[in-house]
């Protein structure tokens, strides 16, 4: 507890009002979720439980306007995601527009809908980078997790990405049902000539929270995975960069979710809603502004949703006086709301959270039972 007391002694002048701070903040990246349509139905999908129908998707012109406004706001990178973004026929046009505006463009895809010709067109449109998800190295398990028979197609498309000359990241969402293949996933990424591998442990929101018992690894599995990643980082230094996201249920400190609410990042949904993170619609009490109605810069600076948890003024104790309040920014608001019903509460992943005990039940179940997946569906 002595550590906590020293935190209270922090100087008051480090509190800066959200208004003042927002003028200094320039976002780095925008995640454009072009559609929620996807042939896969991964049970940990980061899309919201309530998916947008095609009829609600915003038009090419609205997306182009949003991308131009993003550049004016100082955004450097545009990630085109979904759902499956290649399901949109205007993807090339949007990438061309983003590249012309000077954005670094990244395509986040399952790969199953593209062929060499489409990849060449994307390359010619100015695409900078491709990220492909692989659910497991074991084809049968990979297809079971994705709820779609497309494993071999994914591997083939990874090769085509390199063939047309695009840089490649493999994204592997890891959990209790595929962690035993982590080593072979790393080898696969090296063999596919990927520059980068994301080893992302499942984060429990939306669909993943519904399937938590099926996914949450045991402490032993997690420690083993961490060791494998550390060894691989040394072995493949300069060959393969590995980004590693651990499940925060096992952490003492919460993650700095999105680098802080409304600080670095914004997300645009298929319907044009602008969110501080892709899970923010789970905060059902917030209204989100739409790019069809308001300029992106106004939404970033002035919208109620972006200012609601920006900075430190919204924080109750123990966050408010914590000396890490501007490091982890109170952790994740969506997790706090989902697990405690109070979006202002300290993230239960923090050891100082009064709600820490809500993690005990899921952790005690980890590795004991394996329920059937609840697949993502409309």
């Amino acid at each position, binding site marked *: 507890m002595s550590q906590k007391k020293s935190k209270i002694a922090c100087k008051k002048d480090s509190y800066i009002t959200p208004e003042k701070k927002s003028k200094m903040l320039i976002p780095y990246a925008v995640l454009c979720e072009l559609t929620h349509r996807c042939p896969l139905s991964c049970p940990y999908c980061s899309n919201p439980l309530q998916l947008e129908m095609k009829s609600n998707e915003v038009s090419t012109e609205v997306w182009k306007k949003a991308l131009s406004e993003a550049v004016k706001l100082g955004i450097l990178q545009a990630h085109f995601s979904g759902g499956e973004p290649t399901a949109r026929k205007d993807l090339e046009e949007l990438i061309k527009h983003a590249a012309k505006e000077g954005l670094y463009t990244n395509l986040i895809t399952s790969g199953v809908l593209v062929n060499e010709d489409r990849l060449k067109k994307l390359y010619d449109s100015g695409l*900078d980078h491709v990220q492909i998800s692989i659910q497991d190295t074991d084809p049968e398990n990979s297809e079971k997790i994705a709820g779609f028979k497309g494993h071999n197609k994914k591997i083939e498309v990874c090769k085509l990405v390199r063939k047309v000359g695009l*840089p490649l990241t493999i994204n592997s969402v890891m959990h209790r049902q595929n962690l035993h293949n982590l080593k072979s996933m790393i080898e696969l990424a090296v063999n596919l000539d990927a520059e980068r591998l994301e080893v992302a442990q499942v984060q429990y929101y939306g669909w993943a929270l519904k399937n938590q018992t099926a996914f949450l690894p045991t402490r032993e599995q997690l420690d083993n995975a961490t060791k494998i990643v550390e060894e691989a980082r040394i072995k493949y230094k*300069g060959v393969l960069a590995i980004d590693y996201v651990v499940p925060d249920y096992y952490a003492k400190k919460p993650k700095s979710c999105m680098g802080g609410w409304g600080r670095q990042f914004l997300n645009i949904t298929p319907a044009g809603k602008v969110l501080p993170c892709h899970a923010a619609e789970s905060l059902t009490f917030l209204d989100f502004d739409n790019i069809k109605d308001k300029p992106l810069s106004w939404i970033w600076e002035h919208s109620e949703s972006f200012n609601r948890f920006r900075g430190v003024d919204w924080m109750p104790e123990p966050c408010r006086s914590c000396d890490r309040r501007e490091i982890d920014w109170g952790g994740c608001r969506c997790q706090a709301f989902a697990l405690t019903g109070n979006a202002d509460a300290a993230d239960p992943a923090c050891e100082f959270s009064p709600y820490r005990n809500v993690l005990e039940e899921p952790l005690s179940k980890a590795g004991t039972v394996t329920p059937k997946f609840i697949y993502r569906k409309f």
Partner: protein
Amino acid sequence: MCLKKLESKIMGELIQLKLEDIPKLPRHAKLRYDEARKKWIINAPERVFELDEIAAEIIQMLDGNSSINQIIDKLVMKFEEAPREQISKDVTVMLQSLADKGFVIK
């Protein structure tokens, strides 16, 4: 990727920069001046490197023709007050650290 290329990468051939090597940014790393932040930056997958003045000077000289030695020569001419030894050290340390992360190749 063929095994030979892979092995050479792992053995450090590609990442151990020498003075006569011609360093360059790989395709996935793009240098640009950012008007909003008034800084040179490198865009890379899910990363942005904000460069300080020295790093920006060095990275702008990666033209695909100049060796590390030639880059040092040019910087020595430009910054007359700094000793060559210091410039050489700054250049090699920075480029090697970017090479270790896969953001500089030769």
